[in-house]
């Protein structure tokens, strides 16, 4: 047992401050245990939400040393013994009291997202689906609604003005889940996500994926596929750029396509187009490497300023000409 230093935000909608506390910490405890000990021994009216204390209900979301975390899943052993642990409420939502915030934004957005539409003429008990088909939606149904993704998303974090038009990652995966549901009768889930849920605001920085305690691949498996498939009918500058670089949909369909094409090795072209291979595999941009068990601050997730290189972060310049996709127009 040791006594450690904590800073816990106390206050309400009108303001507050970080209070200093010294609290006993035992081996194997998590931050929520410390909050409970604070309540039982020093601050009986310290407000905090929690339920299952096993990472399954998503109630005890808060920011711990600036990172959006479930406090029941944040072990004290991940901090240095002499490190002061700072606990603050979720920043994106209005504070009610202490560590409790008003998350009704999320419930409003849930209500605006069109519900599952049962298929006509299929009686209960007659639903037939393949496991492989339901698994895609099941990934998103793992969501425990802790709203850490909503909290960390920079579209609404510190941008109150965007909240009206933006549903947030939690509801993009809901839209994707219904879109991929084998028997959902509504066919415009993607279009709706774009036109009414603010999908276009998302510029795929992947912060939501980073903080998801259920490890749902929010960006890769829900947001990007929806953005790409919706773009046939709508203009999204990010997807436009993405398609200039690589056609993901074609990549999926033409798995056998040549993956690299070297200068000096022209391939026959069916319609006289340049033999440039846009399907060349480009390494995906990587998030900054975490130190120890700690995740990096999501605002400074990338290891460089500005956007990731469209050519992939692994590529060094100048590039070896032999690996380039270059086609000389004068050459046959």
């Amino acid at each position, binding site marked *: 047992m040791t006594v450690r230093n904590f800073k816990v935000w106390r206050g*309400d909608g009108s303001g507050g401050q970080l209070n200093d506390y010294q609290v006993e910490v*035992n*081996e*194997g*405890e*998590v931050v*929520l*245990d410390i909050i409970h000990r604070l*309540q*039982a021994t020093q601050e*009986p*009216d310290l*407000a*905090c*939400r*929690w*339920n*299952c*204390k*096993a*990472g*399954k*209900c*998503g*109630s005890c979301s808060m920011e711990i040393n600036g990172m959006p975390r479930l406090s*029941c*899943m944040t*072990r004290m*052993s991940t901090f240095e013994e002499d490190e002061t642990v700072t606990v603050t409420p979720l920043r994106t939502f209005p504070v*009610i*009291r*202490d560590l*409790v915030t*008003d*998350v009704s934004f999320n*419930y409003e957005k*849930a*209500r605006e*997202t*069109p*519900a*599952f539409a*049962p298929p006509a003429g299929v009686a*209960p*008990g007659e*639903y*037939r*689906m*393949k*496991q492989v088909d*339901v698994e895609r*939606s*099941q990934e998103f*149904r*793992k*969501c*425990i*609604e802790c709203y850490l993704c909503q909290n960390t998303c920079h579209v609404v974090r510190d941008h109150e003005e965007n909240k009206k038009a933006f549903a947030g990652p939690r509801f993009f995966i809901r839209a994707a889940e219904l879109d991929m*549901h084998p028997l*959902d009768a509504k066919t415009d889930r993607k279009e709706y996500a774009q036109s009414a849920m603010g999908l276009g605001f998302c510029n795929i920085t992947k912060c939501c994926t980073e903080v998801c305690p259920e490890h749902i691949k929010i960006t890769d498996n829900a947001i990007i596929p929806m953005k790409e498939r919706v773009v046939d009918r709508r203009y999204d500058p990010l997807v436009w750029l993405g398609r200039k670089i690589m056609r993901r949909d074609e990549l999926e369909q033409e798995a056998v396509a040549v993956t690299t094409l070297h200068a000096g090795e022209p391939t026959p072209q069916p319609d006289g187009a340049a033999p440039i291979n846009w399907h060349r595999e480009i390494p995906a941009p990587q998030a900054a490497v975490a130190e120890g068990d700690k995740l990096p601050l999501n605002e400074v997730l990338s290891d460089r300023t500005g956007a990731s290189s469209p050519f992939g972060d692994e590529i060094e310049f100048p590039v070896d000409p032999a690996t380039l996709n270059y086609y000389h127009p004068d050459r046959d």
Partner: protein
Amino acid sequence: MENIEKHEYDVVVIGAGGAGLRAAIEARLAGKRTAIISKSLFGKAHTVMAEGGAAAAMGNVNSNDNWMVHFRDTMRGGKFLNNFRMAELHAKEAPDRIWELETYGALFDRTKDGKISQRNFGGHEYPRLAHVGDRTGLELIRTLQQKIVSLQQEDKKAHGDYEARIKVFAETTITELLLDGDRIAGAFGYYRESGNFVLFQAPAVVLATGGVGKSYKVTSNSWEYTGDGHALALRAGATLINMEFLQFHPTGMVWPPSVKGILVTESVRGDGGILKNSDGKRFMFDYVPDVFRKQYAETPEEADRWYTDPDNNRRPPELLPRDEVARAINSEVKAGRGTKAGGVYLDIASRRPAAEILKRLPSMYHQFKELADVDITKQPMEVGPTCHYVMGGVEVDPDTAAALSVTGTVQGLFAAGEVSGGMHGSNRLGGNSLSDLLVFGKRAGEYAAAYTDSLEKRPAIANADLDAAVETALAPLNRAGGENPYTLHHELQQVMGDLVGIIRRKGELEESLARLGELKERVAKVGATGGRRYNPGWHLALDLRNMLLVSECTAMAALEREESRGGHTREDFPKMDATWRKVNLVSSVAKTGEVDLTHKPIPVWRQDLLDLFERSELAKYLTEDELA
């Protein structure tokens, strides 16, 4: 004068877990204006913790399964004390309730031919549990939550307002039911967020508040499980049955606190884990009862050979039935050979190579590593009995879920889910609780709606009752220098855990009643500092009253029932007694606040249901008179 926000509804559902949401859906589909009261945020109820699945005899995996087999399994599990009609309705209606969820958007795991997959589970003869990996409870709650949203979207289209006919009051706690004579007239409570009071005027109330585990030191239940519905029902004149039956698991983690209460699966022992006391002694050899002596090893050497050669050696005593293991752990701890946290060591680390543990128990390893940084391949676990589920609860009419009273029914009060009693008898089978929620949740909603149709005028709330409710709720805040609610809660948990735990004795139960009596006086003087806005100290102070009342019912019934059956084990009466099977113990509260316990004969079985069993099996449970 307090400012009280008033709402008028037809049906008020208290509790937003599986049973509550299903009841609310049914009441709204019947055209009633419905309110859902949720103690936490919407969608956080304890139902999310259910992992195994929902039992329903759909016969998707084994076509021999049908409601009769399920009925038989349920009765066996409950040691024939179950309300037979509830078990029958449950077995018959569970498949429809599961299939219905698919029309709400649920996505269960599938069989090869695309039907809902079903898995095996303890006590079920055939693979029967519809499941989604190990997060079936979450799927259930999310599906019902989303169905309510879809109903709200329909209402928005029809009436221009999402909340025209069904509204969720999140983070709202009901502290009192209000009556007009013997009829329900409304419910009174507070918003956690503001601390302001709210009154629901409604002729019908459905209780779906879950269990009572928070009265225990080690429990897998969340903070909400304070027996609110049980206590509200008692104070409204309803009766509870079978409160002595609590489901404990012998090996729950007791330390570190971050995983306290979480179950350690029995397969840890099956795969070589042994139990040791604080002296390092493998103590289970001292606890093999005579009846089991022949089947269990006498030396550690023989026991250790069993894992690889079960045909020529006897089983290790760590694999004795649950109650025997629990009794042994209990005795060691009480003899002062337990760990500081009140458990014993479960050691697999020193017995098996790390790689083998990882291969055999991957989810256990990850759970403890992630939640507590406990590496079960390197160090022993600290385990002890964990309180998991209460079989007892509000005595209800099996068909309508209407709450019964000593003289008849409490008009307008209904109960479903863990808060209701009877369905599971003395012990619940895994998987039967999720289906219980759906079957009886629907029935409660349906009959609550029908009841409101039968009324000529709405019952009225007396101002004096309302004033009294306000005063009771504010009392802890007005009591300067009152006792710390956290301390009292801790002491209550200590009493229940030590004296009314998994293994019970006459002397200890009597002591527990005396201790509970003292605590009752101290809880009457509990105080809370801070204001009314989101003040957990105040909320706990109010919950304590309920926990104490329900604990008293449990302790009294446990003292009364002089036999061991299912979730009630008396060390001084270790055998099951057929004459006790004919009795339900019924708790009620007198006007003075005293708990009253009476014997009530169990309902007489229908012959066609008795005929589902072999006579030889019935002979194990029924008295000779009943068999004749």
